[in-house]
């Protein structure tokens, strides 16, 4: 007695099922991946509220954003498009300008004893500054450091900074430490 062959399963509705799943995923998920500027906050100091570190006047690069989102560098109005170059010049100080950052000698692996900048960028803002502007300035400052690191990396190792191994990246980080200090905001010019 010949057994009847098993009937083929109707696959016509397969497409409908798949569409249903597809639409479910389209609705419940998002595409956005997270990007951002990563920073580290300074640990809080309980006792000594105002610890004045003796940083020489010439070693501080004061960047200020006021409540009208205007940018001032070292007390003068400044254009944001020039901020990156100015920051780089402040850190490197190629002409040994006595108004720009001083240097100190440090020994770094891969580089030996080198002179690195003592400069600190101080970013100050008002409580009514817009966050968008703050990020724009923050971005320019980080860009200045990243460019310097990249230039050094290409000069020393012939590779862009991102392609280096951890040890070499660390050496370059010591050469150009990211020193952006953020002062507590205040109400510049009243409320």
């Amino acid at each position, binding site marked *: 007695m010949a057994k009847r062959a098993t009937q083929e399963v109707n*696959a016509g509705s397969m497409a409908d099922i798949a569409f249903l799943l597809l639409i479910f995923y389209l609705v419940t998920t998002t595409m956005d991946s997270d990007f*951002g500027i990563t*920073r580290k*906050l300074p640990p809080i100091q309980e006792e000594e509220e105002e610890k004045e570190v003796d940083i020489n006047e010439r070693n501080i690069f004061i960047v200020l954003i006021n409540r009208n989102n205007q940018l001032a560098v070292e007390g003068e109005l400044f254009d944001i498009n020039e901020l990156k170059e100015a920051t780089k010049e402040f850190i490197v100080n190629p002409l040994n300008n006595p108004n720009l950052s001083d240097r100190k000698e440090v020994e770094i692996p891969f580089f030996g004893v080198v002179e690195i900048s003592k400069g600190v960028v101080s970013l100050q803002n008002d409580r009514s500054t817009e966050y968008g502007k*703050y990020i724009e300035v923050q971005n320019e400052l980080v860009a200045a450091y990243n460019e310097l690191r990249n230039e050094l990396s290409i000069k020393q190792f012939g590779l862009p900074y991102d392609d280096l191994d951890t040890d070499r990246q660390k050496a370059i980080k010591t050469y150009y430490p990211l020193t952006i200090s953020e002062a507590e905001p205040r109400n510049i010019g009243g409320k």
Partner: protein
Amino acid sequence: MAKFGRKNKGGTPAISTASLPDIVFMLLFFFMVSTTMREVELKIRVHTPEATEIKKLEKKSLISYIYIGQPTKSYIGKYGTEPRIQLNDVIATDLEEIGQYITSEREKMDEADVPLMMTSLKIDDKTKMGIVVDVKQQLRKSQALKINYSTRKKLVK
């Protein structure tokens, strides 16, 4: 006559839909792989600023999110128009809640992962810095020092 008739009856043959499920499944897998689940329902408007010097955040499990922005239209009646802080699904009413939120996020993690914990700040670009600074101050108090200002990628000019 009959001969011709039979010939015309065929017309254009129906397109085979046998491969349609395959195509749709392919799309489905693409979306399953490239997207992530929507985690929270935003009650505030967050339009993050643009930046170029950005890093991609890996390991979502290590990240806790804090959102700051104006309440959306449907929530203005409830929360007003001033920028508010949202932690997961709830709007914080008090700054102190941030500390509790960080502690509870920390407890959820593996012990080994705690030092790697990062807080992602998703802040609307129209927000005033005052509230941002208050939040940062709270984060410092609760020892959550690694932060990330969430931004969108800016196309290079």
